[in-house]
């Protein structure tokens, strides 16, 4: 119910804010991160399998789509489906390796798989190597893909689907099995739950949704390279968003994205630095002013780091965790 209301509000937002491309751009980023983090949450939050390599699925979707559209002139929708297939293949390989491991080993192995994907994309020719892939023109059913609106609604749709799946999982047999695996893997196995089947199921759902977002992102930006879509930093941002909002909750990842993405955007676009200067708090010509102007734009990852540390120390269950009764 809440999902429908939020989706309704979100779908009229572009009309309210007008056609300001900057604002819509930020909102697309918020929706994308919310959906990415929610998709991660299905595996990390409900099944308790913290994947530190989700960028691999995002990148798989992005690269497959870009290669098919730019080199073979595929229909974008077909290439998104192809992206899902590519991500699922990687997910199955990953799953067969990493789900036999626990704790530290699981996290490490998921990073190793993602790094192999990243380095392969960087070194193969058909992925454009370090130069990445640029898309000059794309069309679908006469939609204006130069405008941002189709992507806004595309991201929103994926977010709603992801939240819907999460909601369904919470009350379905699979969902209960996943939570049982999260709470105590051995107890779950002794009750006859097929651990690797359900873990892989959660991973496949999560990877497929992540790859769709990767495809959308690629067509939206029209340029991808390994540092944009396959970096470890992206995997960490996805987890961090979920952690700040609340892992294993329906709305936690969305809340995290609503808070974090605009913050990163403010730092990146130097709004804070400019505001400090404009209000006379810091003089523009002073050493500090110059330093802030030049460097604050790069500081958003630093701020992410600080937030991560504070969050783990003081809010390990996230903001929504504050409101849930301790079990």
């Amino acid at each position: 119910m809440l999902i429908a209301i939020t989706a309704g509000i979100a779908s009229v937002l572009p009309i309210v804010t007008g056609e300001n491309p900057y604002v819509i751009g930020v909102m697309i980023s918020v929706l994308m991160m919310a959906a990415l983090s929610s998709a991660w949450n299905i595996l990390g939050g409900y099944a308790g399998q913290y994947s530190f390599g989700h960028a691999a699925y995002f990148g798989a979707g992005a690269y497959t789509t870009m290669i098919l559209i730019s080199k073979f002139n595929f229909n974008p929708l077909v290439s998104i489906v192809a992206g899902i297939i590519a991500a699922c293949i990687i997910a199955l390989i990953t799953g067969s390796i990493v789900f036999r491991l626990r704790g530290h080993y699981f996290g490490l192995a998921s990073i190793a798989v993602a790094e192999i994907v990243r380095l392969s994309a960087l070194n193969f020719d058909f992925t454009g190597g370090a130069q990445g892939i640029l898309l000059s023109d794309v069309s679908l059913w006469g939609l204006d893909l130069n405008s941002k609106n189709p992507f806004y609604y595309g991201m929103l749709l994926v977010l709603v689907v992801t939240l819907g799946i999460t909601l369904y999982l919470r009350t379905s047999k699979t969902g209960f099995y996943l939570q049982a695996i999260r709470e105590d893997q051995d107890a779950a196995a002794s009750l006859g739950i097929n651990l690797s089947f359900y873990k892989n199921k959660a991973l496949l759902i999560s990877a497929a949704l992540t790859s769709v977002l990767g495809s959308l992102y690629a067509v939206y930006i029209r340029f991808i390279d390994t540092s944009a879509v396959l970096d470890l930093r992206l995997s960490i941002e996805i987890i961090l968003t979920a952690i700040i909002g609340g892992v294993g909750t329906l709305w936690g990842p969305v809340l995290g994205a609503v808070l974090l993405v605009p913050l990163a955007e403010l730092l990146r676009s130097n709004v804070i630095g400019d505001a400090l200067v404009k209000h006379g708090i810091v003089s523009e010509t002073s050493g500090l002013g110059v330093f802030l102007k030049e460097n604050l734009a790069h500081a958003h990852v630093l701020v992410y780091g600080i937030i991560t540390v504070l969050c783990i120390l003081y809010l390990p269950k996230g903001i929504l965790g504050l409101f849930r009764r301790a079990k």
Partner: protein
Amino acid sequence: MFFLQSLLSGILTGGVYALAGIGMSLVFGVMNISNFAHGDLMMLGMYLAYFSFTLLHIDPYLSLLLIIPTAFLFGCIIEKVFIHRIINHPHQNQILLTIGLGLIMSNSALLCFTSDPKILTTSYSSSAVHIFGGISLSVPLIVSFLITCGITGILYVFLSKTTTGLALWATSQNREAAQLMGINVAKMSAIAFGLGTALAATAGALIAPTYYIHPMAGHTFLLKAFTICVLGGLGSVIGAGVGGVIIGVVESMSSTYLSSDWKDVVVFIIFLAVLLLRPQGLFGKKGEQ
């Protein structure tokens, strides 16, 4: 000839990797924490060596006398302020906390030192010795390797002969039992993290004369250090030493016979293969994974 050349230079580089791996393994063994800030601590070691060379004009190898105590103290402080509060938390929280600390370190370095790579050029940086006719070995790598051997030896004696070392060993075997025997495990954790940090910084300083110094350099080394630890068995110091040399040789061999672009991929494939076939590592105990 090519084979011998890449084998020897692999062993030399591997020695320095081993030092980073031993530091990480020590922290894992005593505290049961995978330290994702390890690579960034190494990066800080590189910068320490760079600045003590350019600003204080101290030879990078001599500056170790300065870097080791500084890094040890830094590590103890980090343990006391951050790490010890999450020692009983789930693994993923520990991983995220150390990732956060690493991000803070690398991005502070980025703000302070900019993203331009720095090169530490000493008078002997590019000199090499030639043995058996055609094989040339870089002098800085040889010196680094010898220092690594020395430090590893000292560490081994410290861990197996001194009271503190044995207490560390006991803590890594069984934290609760060690505490019951009157060992101050909180202090042991701080010492272990301090030692781990000192070893990471030393490895960074040793590799500084032959490598680009860059705020994001830690990333590559972090994953290498993990591979080394897993190969040797998480928590096994001897294993990490052997693992380091193996990874050094694998890297150097795959650059020679495959291509230097793919050497990291080979390392990760080995990493996954070890996790699949022998997750306890070459020297680890079974049943830990």
